[in-house]
């Protein structure tokens, strides 16, 4: 029987090598254990990995840019359900990331996730690789593989507009790659609805390697709900709580995420000049307050969201003029602005716009440019390699030029397109890459916010803040305030945040709801939608199961305790100034406690833990 109640009951499996499309049922057994979105995708990826192993293909030999890589676009039971808080999202995963060699993972908002469900599917699984450019069109339950030769080479905005018009229909949305993905830039992302992206770990390059330009979804099917009356009541209570909550009801709508620039800088944790310090003297110039006062033209919400943190912006005049763009959000402002010491917000907005247009992850790109700036200022890059690109901290023009050079691998762009880890290895100074497991860390220096350091070190996909966002209790005081400079209790918080975030990314809705909603709220919302009686403990167990199975996968690539670490700069170099002056991250102390709580030995889940979570290898 077709799974319903929160699910559309169908998964599209596209084999691009043979050009065949198959429809498979969504499994109730898998959904009950892994929900959907990230969780369901992790489950499927593990099945592929086992299949490869049984055929004698070692996981570590899977080429991230080869046809053997898998790409999964997945929604969850909350996605696209009217009244399910901020449920306009979807999750994308790949067996391996070209940037890191670990698992590929990204999450995006906009409209694409709900519209995939309205088109009749819970997920799209992409296998193999096509010889010529193609796109997948899914309209009202029917899927087709179509020629995309005429679209190859086009940017994200043109591709989106052409395909929206061509495919047409009600609720049409396009997820596509730009030139960066086509050219296999390792930080290429998948962009939907022009400005929303599954940004991290180079998923756009995986899509490009498969010659898959886009997936267009369109439809008007409704997502069934098991207990509509009960759901309506719980939904109303949760949405009221979000409206009344000062963060989701006022802070985020008014200023978006870039409002964090000043507070993180005040706490001494805003990485500046490739993490040489956590205090940016020009933070005010690139802050959310400045953005709102000068560039903001309106807000834009994702499907079904009452928060509306998206910023519609313009640069009115000058060399970096843009008529209309979206963003930058906090991470982009930091990576393109603070890490590079570029204080010209016009340039940061422009660089962010180019990232959307060309399909690049601004966090990894900005961090890679910052690493190149430090390499260059220290005299480690031969002049002939730079080909006239004046990569010095603070050079706004060089920042903007670096974006398109990276997307097209033009001149020095071919080195930038590798990401900071490989770039720094090429020039003999791997210690200058501010990355964990090859993924560049986002905008919080853990010397000033210790818990986020433990999270960066242990995050399965690498240096990621939204795997376990302990900045929330450490700096923002949500749900309760803990001291960012102390170590006590951090392991517990990191584990809870990592597990609960897996639930959010498998629901799939927006992490920002968790500023206002509790685990109990999620249990009640999901129970009413699916008809399953889920308790808070069930919810956290599902999250923990997903996190552990994802960990099992990265273990198969050779990542273990030795990789659960941080760049030397954060462990050995004392913070030179600010409120965290003299601090380093005492990672090992926190990590021991964390492994104990997780039931892991040297970064690997113990057999007892796997048994407890009912994970069968």
């Amino acid at each position, binding site marked *: 029987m077709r799974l319903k109640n929160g699910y559309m009951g169908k998964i599209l499996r596209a084999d691009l090598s043979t050009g065949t499309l198959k429809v498979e049922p969504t499994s109730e057994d898998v959904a009950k254990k892994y929900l959907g979105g990230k969780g369901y995708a992790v489950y499927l990826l593990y099945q592929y990995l086992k299949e490869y192993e049984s055929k004698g293909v070692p996981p570590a030999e899977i080429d991230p840019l080869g046809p053997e890589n898998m790409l999964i676009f997945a929604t969850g039971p909350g996605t696209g359900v009217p009244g399910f808080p901020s449920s306009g999202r979807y999750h994308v995963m790949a067996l391996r990331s070209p940037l890191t060699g670990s698992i590929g993972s990204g999450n995006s908002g906009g409209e694409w996730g709900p519209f995939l469900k309205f088109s009749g599917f819970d997920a799209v699984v992409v296998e193999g690789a096509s010889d010529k450019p193609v796109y997948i069109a899914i309209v009202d339950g029917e899927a087709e593989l179509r020629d995309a030769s005429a679209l190859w080479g086009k940017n994200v905005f043109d591709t989106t507009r052409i395909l929206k018009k061509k495919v047409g229909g009600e609720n049409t949305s396009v997820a596509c790659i730009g030139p960066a993905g086509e050219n296999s830039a390792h930080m290429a992302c998948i962009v939907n609805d022009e400005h929303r992206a599954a940004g991290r770990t180079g998923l756009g390059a995986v899509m490009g390697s498969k010659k898959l330009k886009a997936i267009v979804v369109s439809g008007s099917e409704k997502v069934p709900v098991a207990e509509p009356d009960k759901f309506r009541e719980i939904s109303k209570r949760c949405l009221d709580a979000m409206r009344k909550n000062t*963060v989701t009801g006022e802070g*985020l709508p008014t200023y978006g995420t870039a*409002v964090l620039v000043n507070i993180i800088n005040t706490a001494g944790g805003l990485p500046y000049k490739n993490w040489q310090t956590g205090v940016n003297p020009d933070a005010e110039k690139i802050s959310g307050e400045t953005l709102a006062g000068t560039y903001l033209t309106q807000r834009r919400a994702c499907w079904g969201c009452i928060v509306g943190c998206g910023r519609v912006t313009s640069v009115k005049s000058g060399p970096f003029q843009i008529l209309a763009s979206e963003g930058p959000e906090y991470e982009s402002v930091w990576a393109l602005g603070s890490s590079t010491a570029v204080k010209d917000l016009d340039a940061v907005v422009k660089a962010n716009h180019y990232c959307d247009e060309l399909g690049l992850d601004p966090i990894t790109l900005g961090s890679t440019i910052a690493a190149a700036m430090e390499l260059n200022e220290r005299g480690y890059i031969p002049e002939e390699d730079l080909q006239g690109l004046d990569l010095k901290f603070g050079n706004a023009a060089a920042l903007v030029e670096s974006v398109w050079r990276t997307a097209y691998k033009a001149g020095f762009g071919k080195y930038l397109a590798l990401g900071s880890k490989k770039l720094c290895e090429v020039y003999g100074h791997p210690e200058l890459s501010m990355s964990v497991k090859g993924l560049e860390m986002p905008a919080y220096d853990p010397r000033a916010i210790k818990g986020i350091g433990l999270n960066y070190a242990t995050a399965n996909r690498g240096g990621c803040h939204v795997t376990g966002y302990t900045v929330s209790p450490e700096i923002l*005081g949500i749900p309760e305030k803990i001291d960012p*400079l102390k170590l006590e209790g951090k392991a517990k918080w990191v584990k809870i945040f990592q597990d609960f975030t897996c639930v959010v990314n498998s629901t799939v809705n927006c992490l920002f709801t968790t500023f206002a909603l509790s685990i109990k709220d999620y249990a009640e919302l999901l129970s009413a939608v699916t008809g399953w009686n889920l308790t808070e403990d069930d919810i956290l167990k599902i999250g923990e199961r997903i996190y552990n199975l994802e960990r099992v996968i990265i273990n198969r690539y050779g990542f273990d305790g030795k990789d659960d670490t941080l760049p030397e700069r954060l462990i050995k170099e004392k913070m030179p100034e600010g*409120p965290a002056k003299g601090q380093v991250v005492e990672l090992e102390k926190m990590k021991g406690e964390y492994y104990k709580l997780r039931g892991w030995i040297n970064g690997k889940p113990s057999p007892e833990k796997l048994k407890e979570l009912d994970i069968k290898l």
Partner: protein
Amino acid sequence: MAGVSAKIMLFATLRKKYGVKDLNVECDGTIFNLIENASKILGGSFFDDVYDKNQGKVRENIIFMINGRNIKDLGEKIEIKDNDVIAIFPPIAGG
């Protein structure tokens, strides 16, 4: 206690509402007196926006930092010293 002078910095909606980024305020070294004196410059509503009279402390959802450290992390006895920088944020978040 001898008077001290501290710099107050306002952010986000507080900055928008009161129209200033920062101001120097004299006080007796207590947070209560600092906010009270700032209210004389910014207007009475500032006190109520930041301070909870019934609880006798800074409002729960206000982020009040002295030299980059949240007062919630500084223990019970907090004294404002000359040239301290006080950053006051309304409830904000991001990611």
